[in-house]
């Protein structure tokens, strides 16, 4: 398997009045084709910003992103796609879902039969036939997320970034989504990056995990390494706090350590 993505010293700075704030600080990592990478870490540590920079939505301040061996993204093919947390916003609420997806297939490929490609996509994400003709606003949150995913798959991405796909989903939907991502990864050979706070789900989905803290990567490793022998104090803290049973003194102490 080849390397699909390589980040070299990616930094992101924003100006606030006279001050400059560093959101991301020298991020380095690489990702092999067809792997699923998990990114977790503190609220506000820069996870979504990083996702946007990789996808080319935000410009990086410094550093180099190598995707499929090149340091520029193909603007026409858009090989990197993000499934955002508020995915309702990427769907035109007044258009029928099948029209949106079919159009995306026509734009992104020279598919001979877009309709059958569309059916293949809908089937593989369990998007039932009675919803195809619905409009965005007529779908529930979970259904919207699936529709948004169909729209993304229609664009034939090579790398799919999932931003907190599990948050605010009920346990049953979380389980369905988890299996869905695993099967998409296999079926469409799509490399994935998944951002999530819930480490237990990342453990089931990803082969490698990165922990971000205050704009820096503080730990990176194979999933079982992170869970069995975390090295950085903050990673240990995250895992310890997962049971919601630490006292305030423990929370404060652990935070100081990390």
């Amino acid at each position: 398997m080849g390397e699909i993505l390589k980040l070299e010293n990616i930094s992101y700075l924003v100006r606030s009045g006279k001050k400059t704030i560093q959101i991301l600080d020298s991020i380095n990592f690489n990702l092999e084709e067809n792997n699923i990478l998990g990114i977790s870490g503190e609220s506000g540590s820069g996870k979504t910003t990083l996702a946007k920079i990789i996808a080319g939505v935000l410009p990086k301040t410094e550093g180099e992103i190598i995707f499929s061996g090149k340091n520029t993204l193909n603007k026409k093919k858009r090989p990197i796609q993000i499934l955002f947390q508020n995915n309702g916003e990427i769907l035109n609420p007044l258009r029928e879902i099948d029209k949106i997806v079919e159009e995306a297939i026509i734009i992104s490929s020279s598919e001979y039969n877009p309709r059958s490609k569309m059916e293949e996509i809908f089937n593989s994400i369990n998007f039932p036939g009675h919803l195809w003709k619905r409009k965005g606003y007529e779908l529930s949150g979970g259904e919207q997320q699936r529709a948004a995913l169909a729209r993304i798959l229609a664009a034939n991405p090579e790398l799919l970034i999932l931003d907190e796909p599990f948050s605010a989903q009920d346990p049953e939907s979380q389980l369905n989504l988890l299996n869905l991502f695993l099967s998409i990864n296999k079926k469409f050979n799509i490399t994935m990056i998944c951002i999530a706070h819930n480490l237990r789900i990342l453990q089931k989905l990803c082969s490698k995990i990165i922990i971000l803290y205050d704009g820096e990567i503080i730990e990176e490793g194979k999933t079982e390494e992170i869970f069995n022998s975390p090295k950085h104090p903050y990673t240990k803290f995250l895992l310890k706090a997962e049971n919601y049973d630490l006292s305030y003194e423990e929370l404060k102490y652990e935070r100081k350590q990390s």
Partner: protein
Amino acid sequence: MLDVAIKNLLLKRRNGFRTVLKDISFSIPVNNIFTIVGKNGSGKSTLIKSLTDLLDKRFYKIDGQILFNSQDILLLKKNELMELRQKKIKYVFQDAINSFDHLKKFGYYFNKLTKNLEETEELLNFFFLPDPGILFKLYPYEVSGGMAQRISLVLVLLTHPQIIILDEPTSGIDSPIASLVLLKLKEFASSANNSVLLVTQDLLFAKRISNKIAFLFDGNLTEFFSVPDFFDNSNNEKLNLFLNSYTEIS
């Protein structure tokens, strides 16, 4: 004390009405934390919004009674209702960042609420948030979603309400921060005549924080069970399915 008895909550459709909630009745005693869990789209957020008459009357019709300290909230005059929402029953919504005006710095909200900088500092400190000197100068778009949610909770606590209602308090925040929210809410609920109502998908959080938990399915609410009874609910098929998925995912 909040006594809820909603006979029907209807949503207007093109042709007639759709029932969103049916025969919901429960009471939250003081010094308790009650939690409602349920699948996406089961009506959880609609239910909590209906409690202080927040739903848009052009689309929703509610038939029932919601008693707060023996007064029916649904019969209050507009100014009485505003006062209740300002002082007595406060919400922390999921999308906290958009509860703020993006062109006003956080200082605006704090200064409007309280002159007591000591209490503010104490709360900010508790939640690992920046000191007033820094935070008050920030705009809502300069903080992360998780931070906005904590700030929103601090503002709610500063008004000293009797009831706090939270929608998905752990979504989008890391576990240490969720633990802080848990500790603070427990402290709040155990003092004065306070109580807390929350809806969440995070069953572990619900387990750790709640006095009682109920399950909302298709607009019907089960009774509020004690925590052990809730997780050992073998005769409710729908709830069992829900709990099984949870066990599998965690």
